[in-house]
């Protein structure tokens, strides 16, 4: 892999217009990645999902060079109907379109940040990989007091042109005081056997509101890793919703730093898996100051030898008195071979806190099925009704009604 990385890196660098200093930094990141390799099960955070092994088994040899010189045609058929929205379109990792047609142009700034390297507070090797190979990196700045009229949808599209490739993406967002942004990440892949490595960084200033919905719904054979870092100032709110379903393997990491008082973070997720899929959500909520709040709810329905992993951590600093942290994960195993692993973790250094977590996993309740069947439903109908109700609980947590309906339609959940 080492020669491949080196060769692809040299090729990539040629196409980037970078200063010598930036090249040096990228080289350093590359070396660090070569040194560490893909994360494996020996690392505690990857205990349940050995990425190194998964890539080996599903992709084999990866290549890292991405020809980004030619443009791709934007396929408008993938765009969401019935909801007016702003768009950013990524095709095969290349930004093809940025369109804020519904917004005041002077309130949103798009800054080309290609030359700065982000320091993420996570130590895994994938951030090194991302740093080494990302070319264009944009920062989207929502100015003070501006609240986007329409949601922003980021389309992540890959097509059959690419194969066994590693795609690295990076976006930065800054929400200034009193601003708000609704953001939907929509994954739409027709390609197979690629490894997507996505890093987002959000900076929320006072009173800012971020709602991020990640929808990975369409069947595909890709391997996906996504890392969200969210820094929150006073009174800010972040809401993250993850629908984890389509990809062959996916791991979503949310790292949330509640730096300001009265900041709150919500993480809700659904795993709906079948067909040997293996998905993971890992969330780390750092309560760093007093009177902060976090709430997490993760539900899974697992069929056909699929595997879901939830690792959630609530960290409470010794200054973070009056913290309120809650975390619940529930799983229904429909099939004998399906598997649910959880590691709900609390690390608490302050005494005046209220933190709790719960985790439950098991089969569908036979009594409930019997109840429904005795009222005339078929076995299949009863099963579907119960699963529907089980997942609806999470979707109902979405605070934006427009998007809630959109997601309900997408995954076919009825009220």
């Amino acid at each position, binding site marked *: 892999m080492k020669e491949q990385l080196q060769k692809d890196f040299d090729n990539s660098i040629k196409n980037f217009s970078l200063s010598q200093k930036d090249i040096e930094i990228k080289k350093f990141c590359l070396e660090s990645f070569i040194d560490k390799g893909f994360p494996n099960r020996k690392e505690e955070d990857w205990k349940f999902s050995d990425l190194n092994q998964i890539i080996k088994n599903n992709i084999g040899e990866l290549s890292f060079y991405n020809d980004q010189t030619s443009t791709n045609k934007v396929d408008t058929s993938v765009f969401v109907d019935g909801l007016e929205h702003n768009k950013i379109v990524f095709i095969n990792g290349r930004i093809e379109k940025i369109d804020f047609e519904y917004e005041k142009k002077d309130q949103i700034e798009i800054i080309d940040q290609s030359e700065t390297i982000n320091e993420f507070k996570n130590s895994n090797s994938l951030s090194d990989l991302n740093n080494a190979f990302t070319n264009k990196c944009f920062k989207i700045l929502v100015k003070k007091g501006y609240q986007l009229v329409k949601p922003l949808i980021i389309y992540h599209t890959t097509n059959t042109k690419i194969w066994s490739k590693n795609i690295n993406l990076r976006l930065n967002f800054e929400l200034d005081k009193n601003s708000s942004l609704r953001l939907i990440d929509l994954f739409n892949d027709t390609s197979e056997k690629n490894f997507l490595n996505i890093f987002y960084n959000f900076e929320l200033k006072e009173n800012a509101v971020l709602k991020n919905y990640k929808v990975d719904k369409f069947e595909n054979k890709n391997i996906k890793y996504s890392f969200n870092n969210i820094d929150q100032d006073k009174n800010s709110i972040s809401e993250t919703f993850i629908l984890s379903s389509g990809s062959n393997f996916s791991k979503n990491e949310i790292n949330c730093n509640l730096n300001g008082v009265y900041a709150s973070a919500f993480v809700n997720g659904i795993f709906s898996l079948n067909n040997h899929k293996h998905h993971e959500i890992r969330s780390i909520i750092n309560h760093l100051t007093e009177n902060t709040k976090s709430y997490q709810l993760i539900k899974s329905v697992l069929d056909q030898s699929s595997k879901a992993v939830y690792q959630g951590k609530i960290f409470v600093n010794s200054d973070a008195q009056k913290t309120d942290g809650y975390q619940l994960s529930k799983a229904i*195993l429909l099939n004998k071979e399906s598997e649910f692993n959880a590691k709900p973790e609390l690390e608490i250094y302050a005494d005046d806190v*209220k933190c*709790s977590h719960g985790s*439950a996993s098991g089969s569908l309740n036979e009594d409930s099925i019997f109840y429904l069947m005795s009222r005339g439903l078929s076995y299949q109908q009863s099963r579907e009704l119960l699963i529907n109700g089980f997942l609806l609980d999470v979707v109902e947590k979405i605070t934006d009604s427009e998007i809630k309906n959109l997601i309900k339609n997408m995954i076919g959940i009825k009220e």
Partner: protein
Amino acid sequence: MDKRQKEINDLKDYKYGFSTDIENIQAPKGLNEDVIKFISNIKKEPAWMLEFRLKAFERFKVLKEPDWQKPKFPKIDYQDLYYYSAPKSMKDKPKSLDELDPKLLETYKKLGIPLQEQARLNGIAVDAVFDSVSVATTFKDELTKQGIIFCPISEAIQNHPELVKKYLGSVIPTSDHFFATLNSAVFTDGSFVYIPEGVRCPMELSTYFRINASNTGQFERTLIIADKGSYVSYLEGCTAPMRDENQLHAANVELIALDDAEIKYSTVQNWYPGDKDGKGGIYNFVTKRGLCKGKNSKISWTQVETGSAITWKYPSCILKGDNSVGEFYSIAITNNYQKADTGTKMIHLGKNTKSKIISKGISAGSSDMTYRGLVDISSKAKNSNNYTQCDSLLMGNKCGAHTVPYIKNKNSESNIAHEATTSKISEEQLHYCQQRGLNPEEAVGLIVNGFCKEVLQQLPMEFAVEAQKLVGISLEGSVG
């Protein structure tokens, strides 16, 4: 000053902190094959036992000290320890208690462990372990009548080699982790219990561990076998003198329950926890594992952990037999600079297996407490159930309480439920108690006892009273 206050004062400065001035035989300092041979030789062990030890030692050489645990500690120099220390008077084993060194008797009297005949009233059979040797076992005759074997393990190796050979290392193999392997190589003494088929042990069996000599590691090994349809309740207590340096205690405990058998294992661990500034104290790195080998067997662990500078242990159950049951009840209390990383593992292999975990952690002062547990339901363990509850209580903002459960479910017909909470004693509760005339300390004591009640109920009567007192005393000075 009322009685309680007096008890508190007695215990505030760790009343078991005295040391006994007694002449010792020690193995040469350090860890090597010769030392292992020395231990084996002095215990007059058969060749297969020495082989067992040396095999473990070979394995130990390639293992590395684990470092994933939460409480970090300075590197232990394994060559700077004595691996065997015994009172000289024990060289030729006394035939009865009357021949026992009076100094030893005095020591155990001071500790409140009655070795002499008056013990009969208490109805508990005791095996007392002093540093590396078992000094006395009471009620032997009575137990023998029923066919129960309760003796030091070194005696069992000689008198019941077929049992020891069959079961020793069957639950904790010599190739296990670092400390377990070290123990397999150098273990000195401990208890051996065998309950024959269909016998219900008429009294509580108990071992009392005492580390006396300085610079010694204590490596005890306990093996309990409950044959078909039998029942035994076993208690374990521990103390050590106050010393400035840290001492290592790395024990292995193996339990084996055959068809329909039940083993109840209770521990009140009160090793010297170090002084107020975190100096000294015992490193309690213990491997405890029970195997529910037969159908309908049951193993239940109950522990009250108040002592030790660092506690690092996970009493586990391997539920291999169908319909077997595993239970774990724990109270862990840390104060001052104590650290604990404790919990359990429930490994479900058989059908219809059930497990229950109740863990209560209380941390005060500048201490740190971690619950770490594993519930693993394998794909063959149909219709299995687990229920876990771990609650933590924090007192003061310098301490930490952490929960790290690992939950693995590979069977769609099995259910796992896990709950955890962390909080402090609510102002309302305190106010309510104080309003009814309790002072703040008493109020906290009452609330904490209520918090721990679920676990304390599981202890045998005599222990429960002691444990309840210990709970109150361990937290002295942490309120207000």
